[in-house]
């Protein structure tokens, strides 16, 4: 038998040993580690309806089903009526932002594949919409948040990518970030090893000792940030609305934050007054930016028009003509593409398929195809001091 499978055994051994030789390699088992802000100067918010959110990002169907079960098991390990367990089985960045903005959300667990970046040695989680989760993701959290867990391969890199130390220092109250320091995290029960499950078991023990009923009263939103926008297609390209480097909302992820009419629509974002502080900036004025998380090369951006940015505290910027953001100067009006005939050559076919999908998307993005309505294309929106 050894003779028959000699080559296979050699290759597998080589691959596995090759991996174990890397300095940060561990045994996939999901050893839970944590960092937290040690001396928070302010209190967490208390909540009577605590919610722990599981965000399952980019996973295949089987793994997804498996981790929905594991997330439910996590809830079963907690004391009765301890917290609601909400599972986002195909989470996007925008969904996670909305959950973090909820003052009942006390914990967020992200489970998914991660991809290492070369230059910064970070690790990126992708949402189910194939877009990376934004670097400032955690900035959307309220002071009710007690913990945040990153469960995926190379999670140490995710600590860098999601600037976790910086974020927990800037969110009022005490937050703890949990992560596994395994380079590769086993995800199935084969051979009795499921690193994620193992980590969650330990996490449940820690979380069980947290008290969400103690703390300061939640602060109501008293400020409105509003945008006047047009030609924003729902679900095409999610943009994050960012005030002083803090995510305060999303644009284009749902019908509520989109506009398919010919006239401008005002979209408002409620903001807590304390969230207007500029501690995350060097400057001390109010600055707004609107940008997507990093789009993949060649992926079409949704061209749209922005005519006004208004903070209810008195800062306003009107644009006449409106500013045009996106990736094309004028509407794309070509005839619908014809599905390519594949040649069987993988590389060539791959290019054909990408071109085809890309072309389809480009045609669908224009709600107002009248080129006279589109002023000069600008870059992404970054306001100066409002």
């Amino acid at each position, binding site marked *: 038998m050894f003779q028959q499978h000699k080559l*296979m055994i050699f290759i597998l051994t080589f691959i596995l040993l090759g991996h174990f030789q890397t300095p940060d390699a561990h045994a*996939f088992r999901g050893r839970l580690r944590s960092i937290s802000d040690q001396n928070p100067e302010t209190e967490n918010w208390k909540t009577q309806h605590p919610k722990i959110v599981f965000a399952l990002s980019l996973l295949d169907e089987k793994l997804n089903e498996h981790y929905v079960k594991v997330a439910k098991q996590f809830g079963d390990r907690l004391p009765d009526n301890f917290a609601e367990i909400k599972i986002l089985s195909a989470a996007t960045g925008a969904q996670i932002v909305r959950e973090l903005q909820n003052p009942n959300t006390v914990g967020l667990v992200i489970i998914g594949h991660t991809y290492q970046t*070369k230059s910064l040695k970070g690790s990126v989680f992708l949402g189910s919409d194939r877009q990376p989760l934004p670097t400032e993701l955690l900035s959307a959290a309220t002071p009710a948040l007690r913990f945040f867990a990153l469960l995926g391969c190379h999670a140490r890199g995710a600590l860098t990518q999601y600037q976790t130390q910086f974020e927990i220092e800037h969110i009022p109250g005490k937050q703890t970030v949990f992560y596994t320091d395994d380079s590769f995290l086993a995800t199935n029960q084969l051979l009795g090893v499921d690193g994620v499950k193992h980590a969650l078991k330990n996490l449940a023990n820690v979380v069980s000792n947290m008290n969400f009923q103690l703390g300061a009263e939640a602060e109501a939103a008293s400020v409105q940030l509003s945008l006047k926008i047009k030609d924003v297609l729902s679900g095409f390209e999610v943009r994050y609305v960012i005030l002083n480097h803090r995510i305060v909302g999303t644009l284009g992820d749902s019908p509520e934050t989109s506009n398919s009419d010919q006239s401008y629509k005002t979209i408002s974002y409620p903001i807590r007054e304390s969230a207007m502080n500029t501690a995350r900036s060097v400057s001390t004025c109010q600055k707004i930016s609107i940008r997507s998380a990093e789009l993949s090369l060649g992926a079409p951006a949704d061209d749209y028009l922005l005519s006004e940015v208004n903070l209810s505290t008195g800062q306003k910027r009107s644009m006449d003509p409106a500013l045009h953001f996106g990736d094309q100067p004028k509407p794309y009006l070509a005839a619908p593409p014809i599905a390519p005939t594949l040649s069987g050559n993988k590389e060539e076919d*791959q290019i054909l398929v990408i071109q085809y999908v890309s072309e389809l998307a480009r045609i669908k993005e224009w709600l107002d195809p009248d080129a006279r309505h589109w002023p000069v294309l600008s870059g992404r929106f970054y306001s100066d001091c409002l």
Partner: protein
Amino acid sequence: MKTSNKLIQMALGSTLLISQTGCIASLAFPVAEAVNMPLFFAGTGSLFAGGAIRTLTSGDGDPACMGCSSSHLGPMIGDILLAAGLILDQKNPGRTDELNPLPIAPAVAEKFGVTQSDLTQYNDELPQVLTAHQNIIGAIRTLSAHNTKISREDLNKVAVGLGFQDSADLETTLASDQLSSEKITAFANSQGLTPTTAKIYLKSIGIKI
């Protein structure tokens, strides 16, 4: 079961186990610096193995698309990984506007030889950085368009626009191994950046400092 069979099964089992983490591609290229390449290959394989694509917009398969599967997530992994592979090409980051805020983290500060507060400053200055980046791209296009026929006068204009004294200064700088702090400051002043932000930007596009 024979020991040999057990061993083979264990080896295969381990590999399968790891493959389900999505890390098998990286594992197969343990020394690969360009992690995007394994992802790209994984994406390519899955894309064609699945025989399906998904439109970018709706999640529904297009009727005109061959072998489309609108409801099954598995086949979509291919183009997702493909996209991921392209996204993570950090040398040319593959992003729409190429330059995004830098994560404020010790590892990033260390990489650029600056403090975390400098990274905050850089992120604050990002709009100016983008303008500077466009200026550089514009200068490169100008030079490319002229090819060898560019006049000394035009070259001087490009050089002065980037904060150099003249074209000779630009040529000398490009020929040197490292950019001096004086040159960085001159570039920063010409683009309305602080010197530290200019340093981070220049490093991020691969200039030796």
